[in-house]
């Protein structure tokens, strides 16, 4: 077990409002700029539509709406993080993609105290790094229940 504890994990860090979130790098396929989105009717509000990602029609989810945060006007920093989970490929709209970090698995805290935050359901853990607090997302739950 000690070996596992000292293992490193790569995290993709991104910004939503004033918070920093993270996803494990193996779930992230690429980071893209926001392009024309085709709206898909009769889908939940957080599904923005579909885009053409190199010939593959890929659905786009607005994480801000998914987490119940207020929507923000897109800026030049707005990015789409393409994630892959099993057979699902989805793009997540975020305010900015900040960083790629190496984190020791032991630094990830399992039961985070983020009560009161609406997105608590989707949180898998938190990482404290100096003065930064990264919220590690549970991708399975983010993509669940459509």
């Amino acid at each position, binding site marked *: 077990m000690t070996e596992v504890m000292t293992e490193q994990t790569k995290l993709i860090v991104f910004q939503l409002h004033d918070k920093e979130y993270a996803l494990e790098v193996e779930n992230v396929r690429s980071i893209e700029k926001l392009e*024309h989105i*085709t709206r*898909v009717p*009769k889908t939940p509000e957080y599904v923005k*539509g579909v885009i*053409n990602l190199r*010939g*593959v*029609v890929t*659905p786009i989810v607005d994480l801000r709406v998914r987490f119940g945060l207020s929507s923000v006007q897109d800026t030049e920093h707005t990015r789409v993080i393409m994630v892959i989970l099993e057979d699902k490929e989805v793009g997540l709209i975020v305010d900015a993609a900040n960083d790629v970090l190496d984190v020791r698995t032991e630094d990830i805290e399992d039961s985070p105290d983020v009560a009161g935050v609406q997105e608590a359901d989707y949180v898998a853990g938190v990482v404290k790094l100096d003065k930064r607090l990264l919220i590690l997302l549970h991708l399975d739950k983010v993509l669940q229940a459509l």
Partner: protein
Amino acid sequence: MEMSQYLEIFIEESKENLQACNEQLLALEKHPNDLSIVNEIFRAAHTLKGMAATMGYDDLANLTHKMENVLDGIRNGVLAVTPGILDVVFQAVDDLEAMVFSIADGGDGKRDVSDVVRLLQQIESGDAPGTAAEQEVAATATALPSRLTYEAYEQTVIEEAIEQGFKCFEISVSLREDCLLKAARVYMVFELLEKDGEVIKSDPPVDQLEEERFDRDFTVSILTMESAESMAGKVESVSEIDRVSISPIETGTFRSSEDTFTEPSPEKIQHEIVEESTPRLKEENAENVKKAAPSSKTIRVNIDRLDILMNLFEELVIDRGRLEEISKQFDNPELNETVERMTRISGDLQSIILNMRMVPVETVFNRFPRMVRQLAKDLDKQIELKIEGAETELDRTVIDEIGDPLVHLIRNAIDHGIETPEVRTKHGKEPFGTVKLKAYHSGNHVFIELEDDGAGINKEKVLQKAIDKGIVSSDQALTLSDRQIYELILSSGFSTAEKLSDISGRGVGLDVVRSTIESLGGSITIDSTVGEGSRFSIQLPLTLSIIAVMLVDVKSEKYAIPLSSIIETAIIKKEDVLHAHNQKVIDFRGKVVPLLFLEEVFEVPSEGDEADQYSIVLVRKGEKTAALVVDSFIGQQEVVLKSLGHYLNDIFAISGATILGDGQVALIIDCNALIH
């Protein structure tokens, strides 16, 4: 974990091997004395057994083993081919198929096969009814049956050699399953044998052995002065050999190749027949070899990879379009030339990629002979199935879907179409009915026709039934054309069979056939003549991945409507819209057609300007029609159909998406979901 990557290959190859078993068994039924067919079946079964054992599917391996024992008996002349034995072997193959399909569906491939196993064991021990007599004859005739068959001149050679004091042996060699260089081992065996004697024959023939076109076993006959033990010992000294068995051949124990041809010739001109048919047999063999040869030059590619290739290629086409625009602006001859060349090459590339997805319909058709045989047996009918155009190619996705509808139609034709032999004879027809399955290309479509020479469809009966079931009103019935009446049998809730049989008429009927075919963008028509038979003609698009659509604007959004569901387009005035039961309708060519505003259906953000006329697209689903209101027509286009992926499933009235020339995504409307 390690195995999972082989599982797919295992399943595919097992299906192929079982298919080979089925085909060859049918061939064996026609030519019960042709041992080369038995060898083929044996080879397929053997490969299947080996793979199943490697993958850990013991039930599958065991049953195959039992079946193999029976085949071995036939091959060695201990058992004679009788319909009884074939039935059991067919049943075993059925069970094997069920196991493989269960594995393919994620199951464990287990199945209760004790019945079949018992039957197989009975046959193997010679207890099966109908085989005993023949077996006795076989047993007395050949004390030590030879495994190989010998031509007349070979027999003479052996006889003469034996007279001169040589001994003749048949040496059967099994290579180890993990043997890598089979041809090399064969070469070593031959070299050893030829030091001490003369190899006169081998099975499979030497050229096939050299090309490794055999499984693990081969048999050679040799003339030598040495003893059996010393020969066997020498062969065993070659490494990677599993087993060697040696048996002496004496004159009189030959299984002559002539036997194969004596039976079907009532005339007493055997010699001529032998001479004529021997080369014919060789030709057939040569054909088999030719057929087998291309398989060594193909590779299996996962269809997903082809999809990725296609996607990337489409991106290239979009960029090519942009490049063409740019080159026009610059008007540089060199640039223009290069872009033109690129356009041509990418055009060729596109057709190659599309062709890669094409599969001959054979892959669907080849399971039908077996099915027809079984159905004919179950129903006590005599049926001949003729297949034409099995080489016609269709997109893989269409192939996967078309199997079940065809099974339905064939069952229907055999159950309801073809009469019993007695009835047929009474009507002055041949006692055996013919079912013809034909596939061919025409334009951008593939046609599959199923023709039977049975009783045909009784119009009055169909109409009466349809009226009884409330499918049409008696007023409507008067206006229907013959074809429309026949097509009533494709409506849901229709079944004309007076008595329900096992074969068809289980409620899920021909309506499923029609809906499947329509969902593939195809159509089905029926022609029939009472007393002479019926013809079901299916028209299918060449490929599912490219469909013709009408692009329309709905406010600022673009949608694609498949041309296959469009009847026509029109522009109507606002004052022509009528109201009926809270529903806006129009009177279109004497028919009341409901209006559907796509803007409302798809909740398109509205900009609020109302025009005084509507652009409508009339679409149909079966007999029903609806008018979709759009803002404007953009035009017809061939587009590549794409799925919305696994995240967004079951989106209302959207069947997929496509990527337009500007790189944007347009959604494809599923008209079937819009019409109720």
